[in-house]
């Protein structure tokens, strides 16, 4: 299992970027439709996160789990990760991104969490895994990696 992160930022975090993500999602969907936004997230999953994607194709979930731990901790999310023989479950009880956007604009885009669902699907594309993302409440979700 590889837990080496391709991207592992340290230092301060700029949460207002999540507000710009929210604006971007509404802009792209408003002008070009949902499929265009989904395709951009697909590129994020397969190109930006190529290293994680390739690890998954090789059957290795280690970097993705390490990525979750690193960045959900950096953003002070309330979460835990349960690893067992059949599945790996990330339970997010308080997503800092969603709640920060809610503070900025009131109601985040109804497609705000697509950044998670669609990117997860792209990460797993062509791999022995599926990654299901279930939105369990406002700013809360459950992401499950399991074998196909």
């Amino acid at each position, binding site marked *: 299992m590889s837990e080496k992160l391709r991207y592992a930022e340290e230092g301060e*975090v*700029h949460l207002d970027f*999540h507000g*710009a993500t929210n604006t*971007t999602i509404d802009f792209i969907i408003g002008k070009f439709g949902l499929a265009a936004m989904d*395709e951009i997230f697909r590129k994020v999953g397969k190109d930006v996160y190529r290293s994680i994607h390739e690890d998954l194709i090789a059957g290795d979930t280690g970097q993705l789990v390490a990525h979750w731990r690193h*960045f959900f901790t950096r953003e002070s999310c309330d979460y835990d990760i349960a690893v067992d023989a059949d599945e790996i479950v990330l339970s997010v009880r308080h997503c800092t*991104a969603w709640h920060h956007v809610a503070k900025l604009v009131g109601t985040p885009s109804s497609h705000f969490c697509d*950044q998670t669902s669609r990117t997860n699907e792209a990460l797993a594309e062509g791999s022995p895994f599926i990654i299901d993302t279930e939105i369990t409440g406002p700013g809360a979700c459950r992401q499950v990696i399991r074998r196909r």
Partner: protein
Amino acid sequence: MIPSDHYTRFYNEVFKFLEAEGEEVLEAYFLAISKNQEQHILELIETKGLAGMEEYWTHIKIEENCDMDIDRNEDRLELRMNVCPSLSKVLDSDAEPMARYCDHCAGWIGPIFDKTGYYLVYDVIDRKKPQCVMRVFKDEAKAKAAELDVKLLMGWPGHKVS
């Protein structure tokens, strides 16, 4: 969640998509981001002028981990970005950088200065290097004079440069 640390790499994918759709939509997007950013900076500029801008970018320097020098005097504010974290991340990505990635910065802030009566001189220097110099003037003539001393002058929606 795409981490806030990775927003710029996501942004880069958005730019590539929009550039392929045409210049007008890229500009429309810059204006949408500019509108979004007004909530963070507009009141500071309107109430405190150059000091408000300095306050905003001091906060940005910390949160975005910038290697940046900020200098303000009576006439102007200067931001000298020694190492831009935004372009640095885009260059350090497994995805292809958009060749005009740097255009977004003047693209969102330029329209805000136009609204507030300040004059922006944005020297990107070289789109492949994560460094730039941004100067904001109260006086248009001083801004025009400063434009003579740039390497790569950047425009923004509603303010083309030749």
